């Protein structure tokens, strides 16, 4: 049975909870067992937050230090606070303008999301990018299918655009040139909770 452990981190308001739920829902739909934990309350007012997602036969929603396969970081300044969760050989996926490093894959999710007209979509961009990585528990196709099931048309189209932007960075070789989305500052789509 597959056992994958993910830590997601960032600042309150960046859509960490939304991201955790999406991955959890996709894995659940595949018939995997999922247990996760979220931060609520005082800390979400712009403070540091992280969530844990464990896929496989687990009871506890918390990941032990040194056990995570992936660390998804929406804010580079939070990465160091959470990198102790990674196991040896674990991969960090970071929202950053810097180039990749040893065991760390980077994507300028915030920049790409801004190009789409809504920085709040950065979480979905990061998810698209992460889904292209080896060993990531949900595939590009599965994420695409999941986000396509959103019933609000505007939200759906914004999320899918953000997703494709992240995928293109992860798969530049087979990046089919899709028409560049027109930036609109009043885009009401949002990559956040319902």
């Amino acid at each position, binding site marked *: 049975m597959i056992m994958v452990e993910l830590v997601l981190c960032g600042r309150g308001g960046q859509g960490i909870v939304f991201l955790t739920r999406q991955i959890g829902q996709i894995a659940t739909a595949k018939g995997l067992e999922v247990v996760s934990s979220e931060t609520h309350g005082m800390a979400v007012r*712009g403070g540091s937050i992280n969530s844990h997602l464990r896929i496989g036969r687990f009871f506890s929603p918390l990941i032990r230090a040194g056990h995570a396969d992936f660390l998804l970081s929406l804010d580079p300044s939070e990465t160091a606070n959470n990198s102790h969760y990674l196991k040896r050989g674990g991969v960090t996926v970071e929202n950053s303008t810097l180039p990749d490093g040893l065991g760390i894959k980077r994507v300028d999710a915030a920049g790409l999301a801004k190009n789409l007209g809504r920085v709040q979509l950065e979480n979905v961009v990061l998810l698209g990018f992460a889904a292209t990585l080896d060993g990531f528990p949900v595939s590009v196709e599965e994420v695409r299918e999941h986000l396509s099931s959103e019933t609000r048309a505007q939200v759906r189209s914004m999320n899918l655009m953000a997703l494709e932007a992240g995928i293109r960075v992860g798969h530049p070789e087979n990046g089919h040139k899709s028409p560049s989305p027109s930036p609109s500052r009043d885009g009401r789509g949002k990559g956040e909770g319902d």
Partner: protein
Amino acid sequence: MGNEAIGRGIIEAGCTVAAAYPGTPSSEVLESLVRWKKELDHPIYLEWSINEKVAFEVAYGASLAGARSVAVMKMVGLNVASDPFMSAAYLGVRGGLVVVVADDPGPHSSQTEQDSRFFGWFAKVPVLDPGTPAEALEMTLRAFDLSEKYQVPVLLRPCLRVCHARQNVSLGTPGAPADVGPFKKNWTRWAAIPRYRLVLHGELNEKLETIKREVPEARPVLISQGSGNSTALITSGSVSSHVRDIVASDHRLSSVAVYKVDLPFPVEAQAMQEIVDTHRTTLVVEETYPVLELQIRDRRNVMGRLSGHVPQQGELTPEIVEEIILKAIGEQPTAVQPPKIKPRRPSLCPGCPHRPSFFMMRQVFDQAIFSGDIGCYTLGINMGAVDTCLCMGASIGMAAGLARTPPANGETRVVATIGDSTFYHAGVPALINAVHTGAPFVLMIMDNSLAAMTGGQPTPAHDFLADGSPGVAISLERVIRGCGVDFLEVVDPYDHASTREALQRAKDYTFNENKGVAVVITRRPCVRAPNVELSSAKFRVGDGCDLCMTCVKDLECPAFQFVKEDKKMKIDADLCAGCGFCVQICPSQAIEPEGH
């Protein structure tokens, strides 16, 4: 989510009355009931009560009338509800009555990390302690059955790691409304005088003995077979899930026999004693107080909090649990040490109306003592606007006491701040007391129309209830006037000049004219409230900026960022909510609308 699983259990149990007061980590229970009610067209009555005491009393009344009912709160809420809770244990119930009390070891979002299982013990109320969301659903159903069968309230105690964990759970059928028949008058029970209370106390003790004997959950269950008889581990609740995963993943721990207790009070202590007596050592891992450990009579071979083997405070994270267990069997802990984390401190949101309220209060009352309260606005500590914070409503009660202290310099002044929801919850009696006794302080009520910190639950000022059905709106001004307050002004905190003037008039009234409590309401909806449209105005810092840092230090707005390389202040357009308050208060008038 664990809280949603509890909500589902409440529906499946055929419960028809649920009352709650929001508080992390419990708030999503009633919120999920709102959704289930709509989706399933279930007849359950739902309310966000004014406080936890009232929530419990509403649920208790419904139980006496024959319905299954539930009261939901966080653990400090049970302190508020403790009076009816303790008494209800003696009187007993009719329809199943469950009290869901969410604990917050850590504490992550609370004033204490008290263990509600202890409260159950103190009140002589049985306690179920779920370890996962799936168990929380099962135990919710079980709690109603036990309550109805033994005619006692039952406390369901999920910890934060159950409340906010997500997991797939199997759903059962929504239960038909349960009813044990209409209220029957019997004053010796439902209105018992002390003579009958003695009788009822005896009955309660008998009920607990029967439960211990008859209810299987009162006995430890073996969940992981050990080898030999060297080490046993007894655990309960959310921390038992950490224990399971750790023992299953480490071959060095295969000798440890793990027992789990689902009903930590009243536990069958003799069964625990047998485990202790048949093992060389027994480790007790539970959260957050030594409830199981204390119920073991002979603790000479027991390791736990009382023996110093388990930390006395703080959440038992998986790393800590792993270390405790490895040390207990004489192995070296291998856990990675987490870095010294410098967590980002939370702040009031950009555009939050509390920020300008605090800013103007600091300007008008320079050296005052600021008596604060519980809510988002506790974050006023970042702005030097909160000096004390004790519990819900204490800003007003404490202000009256702080104002009685002989002033050291003749300048001691007290200003209390409280939010609208907290004022309704516990501020009203304190305000009546303060007016009656002529306590000299100014009270600023920051009315953002909801309970913001916990997710925007409605207050009694709204004309609708938790599920959107009609309710009677209670005017905040009329309540304050009714408390005997003569000085009352209402201002918009975004309007800097009128807020200053109102606070100045309040200052004169209370401190110069010595007329007692003055109240200023600063009213503007939370920026996260539904239907609040944020301003599209954007601002930038112009050349006139002399880097006085008022915007960063005194206003503490997260949208302002000092760019070190250029030595310039900048407004982050993604964070700025366009409230424009900074334009009004910038000392060098350097902030200008974008596009000028």
